């Protein structure tokens, strides 16, 4: 009888599926730092990073610190005829909200604050217990959301937005970059690095072994 619920893989060889074309292949040996390419569509199957937990965790911790700085301090100040206006990430969202642009405000809130925050929190929550051999539960339930969240975290795009805004304002007033801008500029490569060095398959195997 068909039965709903989890079932076990029946083959002993590890199989890998191509995300692009769904070809199923036997997991090839890949040296540290190398990647496997699908023979059918040319998509990347996976990249192997043996020190994935240490490196990604270290980058996530620095990322979390920078994220706090980026959110607390103003990222730009604007001076015109002796008047000064400063802006933080949150004030951008609340200014849009104040003009009745609720949907746009929500979109900016999600893509520049909530999604990156969730991404960092998730990485810390999953990786710290593995690295320090803490007992913890829930890693599996949380880690599976990483891919979804990542699609909505757009800080690198926001940085380009800041550059464009700077140019538009430069002939109108004096613009002073704030501390948060530098934190931002550092946070983006650090978060990108954390995800490049993350070998999700190895983390899944660790989580499976623990829970």
């Amino acid at each position: 009888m068909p039965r709903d619920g989890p079932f076990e893989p029946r083959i002993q060889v590890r199989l890998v599926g191509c995300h692009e074309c769904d070809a199923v292949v036997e997991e090839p040996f890949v040296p540290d730092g190398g990647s496997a390419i699908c023979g059918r569509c040319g998509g990347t199957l996976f990249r192997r990073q043996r020190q994935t937990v240490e490196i990604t965790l270290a980058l996530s911790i620095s990322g979390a610190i920078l994220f706090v700085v980026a959110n607390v301090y103003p990222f730009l100040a604007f001076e015109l005829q002796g008047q000064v206006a400063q802006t933080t990430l949150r004030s951008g969202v609340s200014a849009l909200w104040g003009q009745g642009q609720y949907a746009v405000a929500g979109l900016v809130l999600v893509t520049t604050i909530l999604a990156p925050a969730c991404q960092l929190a998730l990485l810390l929550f999953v990786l710290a217990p593995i690295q320090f051999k803490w007992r913890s539960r829930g890693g599996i339930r949380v880690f599976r959301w990483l891919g979804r969240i990542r699609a909505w975290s757009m800080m690198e795009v926001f940085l380009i937005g800041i550059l464009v805004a700077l140019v538009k304002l430069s002939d109108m007033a004096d613009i002073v970059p704030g501390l948060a801008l530098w934190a931002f500029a550092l946070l983006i490569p650090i978060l990108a690095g954390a995800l490049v060095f993350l070998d999700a398959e190895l983390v899944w195997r660790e989580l499976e072994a623990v829970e």
Partner: protein
Amino acid sequence: MTASVLPAGMAHAQCHACSLVMTIPEEARESRLGCSRCGTVVHRRKPNSLSRTMALLLAAVICYVPANVYPIMAITSFGKVQSDTIFSGVIYLFVHGMWPLALIVFVASIIVPTMKLIGLTALVISIRRRSQWRPQERARLYRTIETVGRWSMVDVYVVTILVALVHLGSIASVEAQTGAFFFGAVVVLTLLAAQSFDPRLIWDSIEDNDE
């Protein structure tokens, strides 16, 4: 290294969330199955992929017109009001000699959304027609659409930053306008459309033909 592909026709399914490849027992093909590693519901193909993608694309096309016709913001400077549409924003950067930035914004705000609408529609049509035409190129087109899609958010962020920064009453102020809402809607709808499209469908008609 390039992995060799296993013969088609074996009943495998890959978890969308954790990438585990499972062999599905013959008798359980039709039932709802959970991933044995992370518990997410396993689908061999994303459910209703083509209808969802087409519905989202249609909604995006409808929003595309007001997004480009209506101004995204109004800039007041010393009592003079000037409205900016997506296109006039790009022109402004070109006129001011900011070539690299103008190019980025031109690609992000005009080329990318248009390419996403046309590209995804073409992919859906090609699958409807069970096309055998260049699956590798079509798969690459999908990957490109998925990677560059987020960069369209630049203009939404520019509006956010300007609104937050420039609020000195009649001396200088910026107000977000209807176009920003519709442009944000186009970006979100096309991102969702790309997410609900299943690139594995490209390979299905080719596998059918091989058998």
